[in-house]
């Protein structure tokens, strides 16, 4: 069933330079949907638009059938949607624990709820518990990404948008992040991910969208792409 759906999105950062042109997208409940495409195709832009960080010039976004196109960014986490941007979004001078506490902002001053949520993340990622007193900026790139993913899970989202969660990471850490995504999938969390590692994305995804030059190039299930994959990604530099 469609849970997060975008219809005919046209999006620009400045004036009428349209970065996304008439893009449609649909994430199905409890499934992993991957967005792939060459650099600069507009994958990150699509996630930003889905999360209210960019208002589309035209088109609409629906959550469980309800219009959310005009919702403000800060409302999305309250609607059960989490987002891990491509670029670093932790606060480097704060400790790991403080970063996690910020992730529970919407719990206000409900201390018990905050503590339980953080305990849950520590169980999932013991490394974060070990490093909880360290400034987040001192963690390695992979650890910072895990901190961001952990932070996005604190509020128990039903949908998680992840923009290149494994890019620039060592293969071992990337594997750990893919394993986490598998866990989330088995917990029936809907995942939307942008990924440059096309093969891995195909391994984990139930449905794939291919973007090129800000437009839908192709979409379908893994089976739909059998035999066409090499042709699809031919010419991309990845």
């Amino acid at each position, binding site marked *: 069933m469609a849970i997060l759906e975008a219809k005919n999105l046209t999006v620009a950062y400045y004036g009428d330079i349209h970065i996304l042109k008439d893009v449609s997208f649909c994430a199905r409940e409890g499934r992993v949907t991957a967005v792939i495409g060459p650099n600069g195709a507009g994958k990150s832009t699509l996630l930003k638009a889905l999360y209210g960080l960019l208002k589309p010039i035209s088109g609409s976004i629906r959550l469980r059938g309800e219009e959310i196109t005009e919702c403000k960014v*800060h409302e*999305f986490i309250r609607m059960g949607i989490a*987002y891990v*941007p491509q670029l670093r979004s*932790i*606060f480097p001078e704060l400790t790991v624990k403080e970063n996690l506490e*910020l992730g529970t*902002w919407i719990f206000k001053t409900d201390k018990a709820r905050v503590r339980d949520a953080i305990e849950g993340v520590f169980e999932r990622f013991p490394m974060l518990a070990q490093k909880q007193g360290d400034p987040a900026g001192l963690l390695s790139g992979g650890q910072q990404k895990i901190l961001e993913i952990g932070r996005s899970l604190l*509020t128990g989202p039903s949908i998680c948008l992840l923009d290149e969660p494994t890019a620039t990471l060592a293969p071992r850490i990337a594997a750990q992040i893919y394993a986490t995504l598998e866990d989330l999938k088995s917990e029936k969390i809907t995942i939307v991910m942008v990924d440059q590692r096309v093969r891995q994305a195909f391994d984990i995804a139930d449905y794939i969208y291919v973007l090129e030059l800000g437009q839908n190039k192709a979409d379908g299930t893994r089976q739909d792409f059998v035999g066409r994959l090499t042709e699809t990604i031919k010419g991309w530099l990845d």
Partner: protein
Amino acid sequence: MNRYSALAWASIAAGLAFLFVVPLLPVSLPYFFYMMFWITMACAFNIIYGFVGYLPFGYVMFYGVGTYVTAVLWSRFHVPIPAAILASGCIGTALALAVAPTLRLRGIYFAIVNFAMAMVLRILVANLPFEWSGGSFGITLSRAYRPLTSYYFMLGLMVLSGLTVLWVSRSRLGVALRCIRDDAAAASVLGINVPVNRLKAWMIAAAIPSVAGGIEAWFTAIVDPATSFNMMVTAKTIVYAMFGGLGTVIGPVFGAVFMYGLDDFIWGRFPVLNLLVLGLMIVFLILFMPRGIAGTALRKWPRLRQVVK
């Protein structure tokens, strides 16, 4: 509470007690009035620049509007001074609300637009009907002149603005503001309502200098556009707050006390060169201590965190 915070609170209490008895001592009342005025300005400015990272180059406009609202209400509409000062605060805050859309601008663009607004306001005020604002001659309030009472009003406002910064710093608002300063997009993704929190800080940062303007107009019993909209008010506020350490609670207080004292000293000794000396100090400050005294100390001795923040 550790040793350091006990010491800090004790010195603050001693300082306040001293300020309380200043009128009984053979010292200059204006000197200490203006010291409290600058502490107040630096604390309020800290809320918008230190906590949110917005640099309003036209910050003087809130002070300026504050002086004029009190002066006009008292002299033309016979509003009692305390009520007029309150009105200064309200109108200054309303002005902040009116120019709130400029908060959408970032960095230097916000600073410049704000600067331009202060200049526009100065021209507007100078060109109000003469029987209201007295044109470039301004307004005298000599019949309301009560230096002692206005001194204690300023003392009260200074304490209030210090407590406001302390409260902001320790509240959820302060957490939100620091996040917004460091990374507004990341803050909004966490569920922090960026525009609303920023607006709260902006309105608090505007209300305080507006009231301060009203009290200062009462203390000097004269207002005129050149003084009320003097860009040096903005410049000094920035320098004093920065010198002490933006984003900390105690820094701007310390910076204002020290720099105002130094400024006064330089004025007395080098009447011609004082601006040059001030300028050199600013350069030195930005080059060697961008985090100010408190910020630098905090880096060296993180244990001071409880005292400073």
